[in-house]
C-alpha cells in the first residue's frame, strides 16, 4: 500500500479513490438525469397524444452532426497553423495574442452575438466600410442568421482549445526527432507527415474531440446567430421541453445526444492512446525563435493576421462599442454627444431604477469570481483524484473514461431541469441553490481536467516513485515530492480552463440563480433583454468587464508559477 505505481495496493485502496468521484457524479449528474428522464417518459405513458416524431429526431440529429463536423474541420484549419505559430516562433505581441486567443471560450453567447453584429451586421463596421468604399446602397455581407454565421462563431469559440492543447503538445515535442528526419532526407512536408503528425495525433485527436463535442451540443450560437431555421439537438430539446411542452420528445432527444457522446468518447479512446507519448516528449522546452526565412515570415504574418481578424476584432468591436456613443444618428433633437464616453460604465454603478434586482457590478463580479474559484477548486481536486483512480484501474480505465465524458454531452436544459427537480425535493431541499452552481460548473469542467491530467500522470516514470520509496518516503510524501511538482503545470492549465468555463457559463447558472445573486453573464442578459440605449450600453460595458476579469484571472493563475515561464 505504500507505493504509488498501483501494481500492488489492494482493492479497497482503489475503491476508496473512486469513492469521491463516484459520489460526485451520482449526486450531481446521474441523479438529476434519471429524475428528468423518468418524468419525461412517464408523461408519455399517461398523457398519450405526445408523439415521438422520429422524423424530426432523425433530421435534427443529422443537422447537428453535419454542422459539428464542418465546424470542427474549420476550427482545425484555423487552429493548427496557430498552434504551430505559438509553439515555434517568437514575435512581437505574441504573449498578448495568446491571451486573446483564450478569451472567446468564456464569453456568453449573448455577448458574442452582439460583438458579431457590431462587426459583421448589416450596419456593422465591415458593411459600413464596404458600402462607403464601393458606394453600395445595400450591405453586401449578409452573414447573420445563416449557417456561415454558426460556423464562424464556433471557430471563434473553439480555436483556443486547439491552440492550447495541440500547441502545448507541439512545443514539448522533441525537436531532435524532426531534425533526425530532416537529416535523413525528408522535406518539410515529409517531416510533418512522417514524424510530427503521428506524434501529435493523440493531442490533436483529443482536442478535436472536445471541439466536436462542444459544437455538437451547441445551443446559444445556433439559436441566436443561426436563427429559427436551424435547430441542433440541444435547441430542439429546449424548444420541445420549455415551449412546446413535449417532454417525452425532449427526453428522447437527450438520450440520443448522450448515446452519441458515449460513442464519440469511446472512439476517441481507441485513437488517442499515447503508446509512445513519453518517448516523444523532451524534458526541455522548445526554443522559440523569430521567423527567419521569407516563407516563415509570411506564414507568421498571415496566421497572426487571421487570428487577429477572427478573434481580436470582434472583441475589440465590443470593447470600443462600450466606450463610444453613437447616438447622433438616431435623430434626437437634444444635444447630441458622440465619441468616447464612460457613461455606460458609470451607469453600471448607479442604481437608477431602485429595482431589487439591481446588482452593482462589483457584486456580480464577486459572485462570478467566487463561483469560478469554487468550481475551479472542486473540479481540480476531483479531477486529480479521478485521474489517480483511472490510473490505478489499469485496463478498466478504457471503459470508465468515456463515462466521465458524458456530462459534456448532456443537454444543459435537461440537466438544469433535473437539478431543479432533485434539489427541491427531500432529502435535498435544504441545500441552497447558490452552493449548487459551482458543482454544476465543476461537472462540465471535470472531463477537461481529467483529460489533461491523466496523460500527464501516466507520463511520470515509475522509477522516480520507486526511487523515492526506497529513500524512505511514504505514499503521501511521494505524492508531494514526486507527483505534484510534475503535475503542477498541467494542473495550472486545468485551473485556468475550469476558472474560465465557470466565468462564462450561462445555462446552469440561469436555472440555478436566485434573483439577487446573479453571475456576470446573467447580469448581462438582464440588461440586454430590455430596450433602451443605456441598457444596451451597460450590457456591453458589463461584457467588457467580464473580459477583463477573465483575462486577469488567467494571467494570475499562469503567473503563479515561475514567472516568465510559458504555460501551455
Amino acid at each position: 500500500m505504500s507505493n504509488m505505481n498501483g501494481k500492488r495496493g489492494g482493492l479497497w485502496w482503489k475503491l476508496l479513490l473512486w469513492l469521491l468521484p463516484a459520489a460526485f457524479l451520482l449526486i450531481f449528474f446521474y441523479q438529476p438525469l434519471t429524475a428528468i428522464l423518468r418524468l419525461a417518459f412517464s408523461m408519455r405513458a399517461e398523457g398519450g397524444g405526445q408523439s415521438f416524431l422520429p422524423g424530426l429526431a432523425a433530421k435534427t440529429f443529422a443537422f447537428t452532426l453535419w454542422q459539428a463536423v464542418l465546424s470542427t474541420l474549420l476550427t482545425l484549419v484555423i487552429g493548427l497553423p496557430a498552434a504551430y505559430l505559438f509553439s515555434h516562433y517568437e514575435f512581437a505581441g505574441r504573449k498578448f495574442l495568446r491571451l486573446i486567443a483564450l478569451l472567446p471560450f468564456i464569453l456568453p453567447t449573448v455577448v458574442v452575438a452582439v460583438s458579431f453584429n457590431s462587426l459583421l451586421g448589416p450596419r456593422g463596421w465591415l458593411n459600413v466600410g464596404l458600402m462607403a468604399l464601393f458606394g453600395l446602397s445595400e450591405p453586401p455581407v449578409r452573414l447573420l442568421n445563416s449557417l456561415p454565421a454558426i460556423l464562424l462563431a464556433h471557430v471563434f469559440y473553439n480555436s483556443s482549445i486547439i491552440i492550447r492543447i495541440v500547441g502545448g503538445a507541439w512545443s514539448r515535442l522533441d525537436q531532435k526527432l524532426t531534425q533526425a528526419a530532416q537529416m535523413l532526407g525528408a522535406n518539410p512536408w515529409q517531416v510533418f507527415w512522417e514524424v510530427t503528425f503521428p506524434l501529435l495525433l493523440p493531442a490533436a485527436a483529443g482536442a478535436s474531440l472536445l471541439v466536436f463535442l462542444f459544437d455538437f451540443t451547441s445551443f446559444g450560437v445556433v439559436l441566436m446567430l443561426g436563427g429559427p431555421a436551424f435547430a441542433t439537438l440541444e435547441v430542439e430539446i429546449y424548444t420541445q421541453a420549455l415551449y412546446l411542452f413535449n417532454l417525452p420528445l425532449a427526453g428522447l432527444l437527450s438520450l440520443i445526444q448522450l448515446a452519441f457522446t458515449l460513442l464519440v468518447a469511446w472512439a476517441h479512446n481507441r485513437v488517442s492512446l499515447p503508446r509512445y507519448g513519453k518517448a516523444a516528449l523532451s524534458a526541455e522546452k522548445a526554443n522559440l525563435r523569430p521567423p527567419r526565412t521569407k516563407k516563415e515570415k509570411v506564414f507568421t504574418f498571415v496566421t497572426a493576421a487571421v487570428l487577429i481578424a477572427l478573434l481580436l476584432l470582434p472583441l475589440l468591436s465590443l470593447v470600443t462599442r462600450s466606450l463610444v456613443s453613437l447616438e447622433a444618428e438616431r435623430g434626437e433633437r437634444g444635444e447630441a454627444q458622440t465619441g468616447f464616453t464612460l457613461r455606460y460604465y458609470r451607469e453600471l454603478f448607479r442604481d437608477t431604477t431602485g429595482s431589487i434586482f439591481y446588482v452593482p457590478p462589483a457584486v456580480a463580479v464577486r459572485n462570478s469570481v467566487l463561483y469560478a474559484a469554487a468550481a475551479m477548486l472542486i473540479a481540480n481536486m476531483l479531477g486529480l483524484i479521478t485521474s489517480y483512480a483511472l490510473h490505478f484501474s489499469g485496463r478498466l480505465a478504457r471503459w470508465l473514461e468515456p463515462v466521465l465524458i458524458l456530462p459534456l454531452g448532456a443537454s444543459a436544459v435537461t440537466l438544469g431541469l433535473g437539478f431543479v427537480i432533485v434539489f427541491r425535493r427531500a432529502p435535498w431541499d435544504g441545500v441552497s441553490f447558490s452552493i449548487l452552481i459551482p458543482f454544476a460548473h465543476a461537472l462540465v469542467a471535470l472531463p477537461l481536467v481529467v483529460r489533461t491530467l491523466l496523460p500527464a500522470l501516466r507520463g511520470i516514470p515509475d522509477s522516480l516513485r520507486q526511487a523515492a520509496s526506497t529513500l524512505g518516503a511514504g505514499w503521501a510524501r511521494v505524492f508531494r515530492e514526486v507527483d505534484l511538482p510534475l503535475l503542477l503545470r498541467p494542473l495550472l492549465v486545468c485551473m485556468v480552463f475550469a476558472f474560465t468555463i465557470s466565468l462564462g457559463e450561462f445555462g446552469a447558472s440561469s436555472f440555478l440563480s436566485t434573483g439577487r445573486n446573479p453571475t456576470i453573464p446573467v447580469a448581462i442578459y438582464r440588461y440586454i433583454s430590455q430596450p433602451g440605449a443605456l441598457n444596451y450600453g451597460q450590457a456591453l460595458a458589463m461584457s467588457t468587464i467580464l473580459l477583463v476579469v477573465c483575462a486577469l484571472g488567467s494571467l494570475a493563475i499562469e503567473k503563479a508559477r515561475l514567472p516568465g515561464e510559458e504555460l501551455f
Partner: protein
Amino acid sequence: MLEIREIYKNYEGRPLLQGISFAVQAGETVCLLGESGSGKSTLLRIIAGLEAAESGSIWWDGEEISDMPAHKRGFGLMFQDYALFPHRTVEQNVAFGLRMLGLPRAEVEARTRAALGIIRMEDFAKRAVTELSGGEQQRVALARALAPNPRLLMLDEPLGALDHALRVQLIAELRSILHASAKPAIYVTHDREEAFGLADTLMLLHQGRIVQAGTTAQLFRQPANAWAAGFLGLGTLLSGSVVGLEPLRVKTALGVLQASACGQEWQVGGAAQLLLRPRDALVLHGMPEGENQFSACVVDCLFMGETYQSHLRANDFSFSIQTDRALAPGSDVTIAFPPERVSCLKGEL
C-alpha cells in the same frame, strides 16, 4: 571533400564559435574534442544545415552549400540521445532514409536488411525502439544514419549514455565500420578515450577556436598549449616564470627546472607552464642533487594492472607518476624529470 571556412556563431549574444576552419577528406575520421558547452554540437548542426552561422561558409567538393536546406545535403547525423522515432519499429527507423530517397520497395528492404546485418541486429527488426537497451538503440541509430549512404557522417557524442565496457566495445566496432565505409566522418565528443580510439585527425576546440589539429600522436607528443595538455590529460602542469634562456630555465614552486622550449619563443619573466608526464618521472636513490631533481612525499600508491600509479606531494604541489615498482606510502623519494622530457607550454589552463 568537406571544407569549413571561418564559421562564426553567437549564442545568447555572446560569441561561441570564432572563426572555425578545417577540412575533412574522404575516408578520414576527424574528431572534434572539447569541453561541454564549447559549441561542438552547434558546429555539427551548422554543418548539417539545422542551424545557421553568423558568418562563414561550408563547401563540399568545391561547391558552396551554405544555403542548402538540411534535407538536401546528404549528410548523416547521429544524435546524442539517438532520436529514434518512437512510433516506428527498428526496421522502419532504419528504412526511413531509404524511403525518403524514393527507392523502390525491394531495394529499401534489401538495404535495410544489410544495414541491420552490419550492426548484427537482424532479429530485432520488428521490435519497438522503446523496448531496446541503450547500446541497442545506439546501434540502430548508427544503422539508420548509414543506410542511405550519406556522403558525410557526423556523430554527436553518441556513446555518452553507455557504461564503460560497452563503450570500449562500441568504439572498436565504430572504428571498423567507419573505415570499412571509407566515408568522411566527424565525431564530436568530450571524452578523450573515445577520441583516441577513433580519430584519424584530432581537433581541439576551446573558447570558440581550434586550438590544435593533427594526428593523435602529434597532439600527444606536442600539445599546443597548457590547456590542450591539461584537457588531454597528458600530465600535471606546474606554473612558473622564465628565468633563463638557452637552456630554458623556469622558476617554479619546486625550484628552478630546466625544460624543453618546444619550438616556441620565450622571454625572461614570461609566464610558463611545465608539463610533467607521469611516465617520464625517474625515482632516484639518495638526495636530490642534479638538475630537475627534488624530493617528494608519497601520498599513496595504486596498482593499475601493469604499472603502479603514485600520488606524490612536494611543497604543496601534488602530481602523479607511473612506475614499474611500488613506492611505500608515506615515504620520501627523490624524483627527477629529464629536461628534454619536460615540455614548456604557454597559456592558462
